[in-house]
């Protein structure tokens, strides 16, 4: 096949300032505790900054928690709820609820706490 060669223009890649940065924009962070757990739902009391913001109480489906957290969502368990935007290119709105893991009592802590309480209550006589 003869004829004139076809000139193909290779498009120039536009230069950006690198890959888009992944970032998280926190809009709200509540901390609180589980008040009660039902078969498919649980209720939590949530605090932002109790002196400036009202306390809220919310009921959630247990499905909002990961499977491992569902077992930990017993009455009194500490809980965190964050709401924000996750950006990695496109922006995605996120709600994340999780149970705070706090270590169990050490023997030393247990002894210390009991001694403190004995010191507090020993001098008080009830009628």
């Amino acid at each position, binding site marked *: 096949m003869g004829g004139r060669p076809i000139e193909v223009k290779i498009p120039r890649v536009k230069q950006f300032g690198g890959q888009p940065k992944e970032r998280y924009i926190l*809009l709200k962070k509540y901390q609180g*505790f589980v008040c009660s757990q039902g078969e498919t739902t649980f209720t939590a009391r949530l605090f932002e900054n109790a002196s400036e913001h009202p306390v809220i109480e919310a*009921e959630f489906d247990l499905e909002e928690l990961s499977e491992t957290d569902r077992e930990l969502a017993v009455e*009194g368990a500490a809980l965190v709820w964050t709401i924000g935007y996750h950006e990695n290119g496109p922006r995605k709105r996120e709600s994340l*609820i999780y149970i705070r893991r706090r270590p169990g009592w050490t023997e030393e802590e247990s002894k210390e706490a009991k001694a403190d309480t004995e010191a507090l*209550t020993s001098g008080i006589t009830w009628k």
Partner: protein
Amino acid sequence: MALLGNNWGTPPAPEELEVSIFGPGFGECVIIHFGNAQWGVVDSCLDPTSKRPAALDYFQAIRVDVEQSVLCVVATHWHDDHIDGISSVFEAAKRATIICTAAVATEQFNTILASWSAMQSLPGGSGVDELHKILVELRARKPNSRLPTPVLASASKTLWQRTENPPVIVKSLSPSDAAVIAATARLANFAPMASKIRRRIPDVKPNDSSVVLCVTLGPHKVLLGADLEVRSDPALGWKAILESPLTAEAEQQGFKIPHHGSQNAHSADVWTQMLRRSPWAATTPFVSGSVKLPDVEDCRRILRHTPHAYLTAPPRPSKFRDPNRTVEKTVNEVARSVHVLPGRYGHVRMRKNVAANVDAPWNFELFGSAVTMQDFVNLSQ
């Protein structure tokens, strides 16, 4: 916060008795004027606006010298909705006797207290926190031996009394011995130190160790039902009180309805055996998760016993709002339900001259969101 109402800040006359009930949808406080400018406080809740104890705000409004004039402070039990701010009331009431359920003087309760010392970093506090502060205040007062000894409440026990002008007796009708044993057994089950994770101390349920009070003010008597429930075991709850021979003598003119008017705290025998015909009756709402007390059926049941029934506020949650539209939208999408604590807030006030006949009615006034139960039922239809 000054509640709406022209006369809210008007103190009672020296010869005028008063029972005031405050409740914001999560919390409860009862204030009693014994006559002659002497007062008692039963439980505590916070004013949603000032975030101070409702009792202290009210005493300030009616110009009561808390340090000198409040002579007893009762913590009926340590659930959060009955005890918020009670340590501040006790700290201010330097001459007051503190009265708690007998369940707090047990080894099991001490274990709960000990666990609290390592839990304070958790948000939200706890009813146990308030009792811990009360014990700290008692320790601080101990060097002054002239101050009153703290008192444990149990069935048929005189907790506080005044001999004249008029004679006043504050008597506990509960907890029964069996109730204290049952409560301490439940406390032992919590064993927070043996728990895999640290958690906030849960409420003890049911409220068998709750302190029911009979307050005698001269010839007048009122019954304050705390959160005591009806149990099938005759040694527990309202049945234990009804079986006591002292109860049959009681002729109560007023009734702080127990446990926010719930069905499980209702005993028809209490109305027929302990209360006069058509007494005044009042309660506070409780709003948590899907629970809203009292409901319309609860109010209808109460209204069958008396037309003089009042609520410090309807059990309607306050709507959640957030200045950030995205946050508000997300909260409402993710949660099945959400509301602000505490909710609507109101005050039911009953007054009566001590010299009045026992059959004479008490004068009632409603402030803030307080309503008659009949109006609540009518508006809910």
